[in-house]
């Protein structure tokens, strides 16, 4: 009986609800991505006509940009935790630029594939699965960019301070997730499937 917890003086600390919610969202999103990845793998090499994955160029620079944005956002996260707001704003802005570069790269890639190789979403199974998988990821990057830009705008207006560190970090988890998914997409589409 005496070894039962006594609550008056015992700390009662629970995990942050934002982090738990973001982890849950990441699990849900992973399930969506898995289905598109499965569809892509299932249909590799089943086409009777139209362009094949050999028309793809590996987007190395894009990949470097997106993956390094994970690093810059991490530096920004640490900066806001320590209250260094200038540093936070600078690295947050760099993250946005890197993300923008990625999106522009993807747009260029799609344009080339459509105009040079005639690969459209209704061309064949490769077109169908390629555009839906890579497009799904690019959509997530776009959503992330909108969120990042909003936070940057609030920062420039001086509305973001050290007390928001937790929320900033929760949002950054989404960006890290989008980057991690790219590793999977890149591996499946540009290495295994090519």
């Amino acid at each position, binding site marked *: 009986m005496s070894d039962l917890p006594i609550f008056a003086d015992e700390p009662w600390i629970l*995990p942050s609800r934002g982090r738990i*919610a973001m982890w*849950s969202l990441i699990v*849900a999103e992973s*399930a*969506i991505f898995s289905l598109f990845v499965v569809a892509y793998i299932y249909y590799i090499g089943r*086409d009777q006509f139209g362009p094949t994955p050999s028309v793809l160029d590996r987007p190395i620079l894009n990949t470097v940009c997106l993956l390094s944005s994970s690093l810059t956002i991490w530096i920004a996260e640490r900066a806001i935790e320590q209250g260094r707001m200038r540093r936070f704003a600078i690295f947050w802005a760099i993250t946005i630029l890197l993300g923008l570069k990625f999106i522009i790269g993807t747009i260029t890639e799609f344009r080339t594939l459509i105009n040079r190789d005639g690969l459209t979403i209704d061309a064949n199974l490769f077109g169908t699965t390629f555009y839906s998988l890579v497009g799904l990821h690019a959509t997530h990057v776009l959503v992330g960019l909108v969120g990042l830009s909003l936070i940057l705008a609030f920062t420039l207006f001086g509305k973001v301070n050290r007390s928001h560190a937790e929320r900033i970090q929760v949002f950054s988890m989404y960006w890290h997730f989008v980057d991690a998914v790219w590793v999977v997409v890149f591996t499946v589409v540009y290495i295994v499937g090519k």
Partner: protein
Amino acid sequence: MSDQTIPVSGSLQAAYPERGTLLEWLHGWIVTVDHKKLGILYITYALFFLLVGGVEAMLIRIQLMVPHNHVISPEMYDELFTMHGTTMVFLVGMPILFGFANYLVPIMIGARDMAFPRLNAFSFWLTAFGGLLLYYSFLGGFGLYGMGNAPDVGWFAYAPLTGKSFSPGHNMDYWALALIVSGFGTVGTAINIIATTVSLRCKGMTFFRMPLFVWLLLVVSALTLVTITPLTAAQVMLLLDRYLGAHFFDAQAGGSPMLWIHFFWIFGHPEVYVLVLPAFAIANEVIPVFSRKAIFGYPAMVAASVGIGFTSLAVWAHHMFTVGMSSAGNSFFVISTMVVGIFTGIKVFNWLATMWGGSITFSTPMLFCTGFLFQFLIAGLTGIMLAVAPWDWQLHNSYFLIAHFHYVLVGAIIMCIFAGFYYWFPKATGRMMSETLGKWHFWVFIIGFHMSFDTMHFVGLLGMPRSIYTYEPNRGWDTLNLIITIGAFVQAVGVLIFVWNLVHAYFRGKLAGPDPWDAWTLEWATPSPPPAYNFAVEPEVRSRRPLWDIKHPNDPDWKYEQ
């Protein structure tokens, strides 16, 4: 130490707001972010669609009452069974269970609201408008060119029937978009429930002191995250096929309709557990209270629930034994399906052990839970039969299958939902539902249930396939089908008694007081109905039955629990 008790917040009288004008009252419900009001909204919404889905079922049964019947057209019949299935799963089953979760999870863990109240409201309205969008297809399904028509390809919407060439018009688009919209709402609520349960528990509410209701809803929400999303993904693919000419499920371009079947059941089977686990959760609360015993085997119940959650992700292809998988594939899914039987077996035995030796009062909630135990056992046994691949080859898509899953959905889930209504209605409204009407409801409904669904097994064994518009006389199905239809009417009478009981109790029911059942979980420590803030002072708990500890200071649970 022993003077530390939960502050029963009834001491602080809730200041009830004055009833304003009708417009103010309506506005209050629409802009609310209170988890209790949203819970009630969910439940009311689901009850409305329960009646709609019920009417659809009645029309189907009237059509099948006698051979060569032509009460409704074949096209209408296809729409009705599609809409009946879709409605009951997406617009009744999930909203009603999330409604209970919304109302109860925060109170049971001693919190003042959900983790994200505005996300909660947003999710509800997404679900609500998803449902309306689905039903709008009756008017707008064929666009501007003619009469509307509803989705008519079965609730599993197998490819290639859903392709542009076989389903022109917009009915499939309504189906996919409506379910994507309500699916987002569902995922939002699931995230909310997980965050609430993990991060908002009151002092002392460790994971192993949470009521089993909360545990099961946590498992359900986690399962929802990986269950609803595959359906969303597959429906996005379907829309890409229909609008942009993609080829995911288009066999002519090398696409595979099999992919849809897999994707659909990767959603579809865990979905069954998403629906049934909250029903178990209700039984977990009701059975101990009316047996006057703590739940038997709490850790085993938790383990079995988590086990069901994981196993349910690996059984989907038992819906697909007849599509021609390899025998290794068949064997795997036979075995994994049997494993689910072990976990549910653990649960059934624990409920029985809870009742064993208890001083049972058969109030209406307990009656429904007892009915649930009996019917769920039979549903589980026919489930095991259908899990055997050769047996399934014989009876797949026959009325035997229909009987099996209606035994689960009606015999187990709806029964538990009724139990939940009778049990928590006094908490939500402050008034008791009539016991006399409740007993009438129970007996009428259960007699109708067995007339309908027991008989369905036999027509199934006699070879009647599902989804047929009508049938030839003298195949031995005539009398049985008539009995099924009469049973459906008897059930409808039962449901009407229930609805009357609800309405009557809301206005005229006798006052309940905070704790009419002498129960043990935290929701009964608040006044009925609870004030917006739930608890005036944040409670602290020391055992699984905090109210027992207060009521029996000389014999508290925390002395014995590990």
